[in-house]
């Protein structure tokens, strides 16, 4: 059963929301899509780790090392459970960008090693590319899920293809069967667009990827924080997200992968912790997830992210999703009532999340953002690291409002009032 979030109570858990900005104005934070704010329980968890349990994880013969390792591995288990995964399928990275690079470099490293005849883990054939191979993304990717694949294509000779956008801000899948074909080795797709808010049909794309034997990667940065996700039914081979967008600290990201694929991948970053036997002549590597966690890991951040997962679990992800859905519906209605405001992305709430981009006629996004800031309303302006989307719509930038558990209808009203103030300030006649 869906329960309404008690936003007033939630807001009390976020110290930063109590402060004022720009000469005493209350903070209306509508930029959680860039990074979320952190509740006290997350801040406390990180602090408690450093104050009471700090030691290098997976090393040391002392009690603190045991406690630190327990805290780190317990965090892994709780984060795994949050998305319906097993602990060993969760790799900690510094952020989703690193996670995607980890996967793209697995293709590159397998390809390079195979060309030299080096030994590779069993099953690594799926990661070996040649000049006939194809890589598929979409036209709505964040640069983090585009540039690593461009680089992989550039280094291997593989061809990068993409599923195009339509003018409603949804994927045009009419050519999916030719774009994803028997030459496709990897398909990497954003679950919810960070700029358009569009929720993509992961089941449809995943089914086609599976049909041709391509590995299917899902960028879940804007979905895991906002809706229930279960990797056992999602249909992906890998998903990735960043902790800082879901109430957690910066410096911690997650890669979930199917265990047989993780086991088949050569390492990405190498060094301490990820090895098995090291000799001067060469080394062998630990099984996943340790194989992909070189160096002393970001234990305090993992502990902080686990606290964030606990916080969200207490709220219930179904309730979080329902709350954001209501806010999104309200905001779409209110924004479209303002003459001169155009939504960039789906204007209805079906298959849509709470990232709303818009442009204001005759006022540049940066200038809109500045007036909003003056009213205490924090939004993001620019291309949102999705420049090809802006190019598709013939614009250089948008204003983007994103919602989370601590936002309420009042925040939408403040946004709308500030947009009207921007129009007035710049003398736009509407």
């Amino acid at each position, binding site marked *: 059963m869906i329960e309404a979030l008690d936003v007033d109570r939630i807001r009390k858990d976020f110290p930063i929301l109590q402060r004022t900005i*720009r*000469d005493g104005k209350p903070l209306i934070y509508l930029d959680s899509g860039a990074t979320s704010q952190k509740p006290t329980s997350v801040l406390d968890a990180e602090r408690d780790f450093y104050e009471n349990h700090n030691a290098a994880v997976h090393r040391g013969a002392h009690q603190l090392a045991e406690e630190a390792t327990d805290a780190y591995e317990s965090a892994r288990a709780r984060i795994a459970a949050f998305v319906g995964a097993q602990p060993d399928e969760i790799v900690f990275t510094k952020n989703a960008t690193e996670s995607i690079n980890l996967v793209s470099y697995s293709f590159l490293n397998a390809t390079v090693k195979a060309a030299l005849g080096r030994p590779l883990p069993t099953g690594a054939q799926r990661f070996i590319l040649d000049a006939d191979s194809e890589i598929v993304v979409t036209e709505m990717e964040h640069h983090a899920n585009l540039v690593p694949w461009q680089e992989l294509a550039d280094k291997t000779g593989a061809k990068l293809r993409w599923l195009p956008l339509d003018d409603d801000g949804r994927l045009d899948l009419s050519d999916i069967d030719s774009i994803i074909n028997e030459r496709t080795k990897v398909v990497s797709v954003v679950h919810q667009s960070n700029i358009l808010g569009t929720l993509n049909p992961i089941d449809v794309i995943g089914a086609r990827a599976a049909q041709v034997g391509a590995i299917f990667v899902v960028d879940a940065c804007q979905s895991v924080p906002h809706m229930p996700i279960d990797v056992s039914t999602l249909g992906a081979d890998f998903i990735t997200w960043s902790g800082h967008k879901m109430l957690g600290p910066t410096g911690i990201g997650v890669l979930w992968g199917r265990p047989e694929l993780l086991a088949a991948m050569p390492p990405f970053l190498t060094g301490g912790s990820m090895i098995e036997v090291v000799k001067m002549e060469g080394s062998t590597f630990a099984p996943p997830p340790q194989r992909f966690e070189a160096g002393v890991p970001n234990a305090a951040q993992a502990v902080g992210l686990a606290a964030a997962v606990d916080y969200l679990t207490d709220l219930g992800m179904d309730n979080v999703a329902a709350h954001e859905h209501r806010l999104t519906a309200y905001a779409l209605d209110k924004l479209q009532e303002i003459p001169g405001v155009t939504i960039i992305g789906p204007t209805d709430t079906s298959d849509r999340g709470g990232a709303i981009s818009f442009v204001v006629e005759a006022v*540049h*996004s*940066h*200038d809109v953002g*500045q*007036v909003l800031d*003056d009213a205490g309303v924090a939004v993001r*302006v*620019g*291309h949102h690291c999705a*420049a090809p989307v*802006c190019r598709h719509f013939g614009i*250089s*930038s948008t204003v983007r409002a994103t919602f989370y558990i601590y936002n309420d209808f009042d925040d939408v009203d403040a946004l709308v009032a500030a947009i009207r103030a921007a129009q007035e*300030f*710049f*003398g736009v006649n509407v």
Partner: protein
Amino acid sequence: MRLDQMYQEVILDHYKHPHGKGLLDPFNAEVHHVNPTCGDEITLRIHLSGQGAGTVVESVSFDGQGCSISQASASMMHDQVNGLPLDQAMLALGEFQALMRSATEPIEPNEELLGDAIAFEGVAQYPARIKCALLSWMAFKDAAAQAAQANEHPNQVEGESR
């Protein structure tokens, strides 16, 4: 209201009625600069004549799109360098860069060098907007360097008029 300090009337005037917008011939350097964080861009042409200390900025023209701050700044930059000896234009550039640092390194702005651009003192208080204000000036600096280089090797230059 702090907004009025940033968006002074003269800035909004230049934004709505920019000077030097529209690319001119002849020119001996053209550059394209972007602000990667927001996607704003400018194409700038410069026509330099003479050499060494006698170099003169015969014309500066630009095209592009961007926020009020970047567009007004380009218009004011045009007013402060167009038709001037290059040495003097470079002094204006230096003064504008100093103005943009003035939040941490206060200066007494030289109104003669800055002209209307003195109105950007308020913008210097907003770190996120300093890049907008500097976009056209940096394009000018780059173009001037390229044009001066081209004038020293006139055989390789197209559009050279003298």
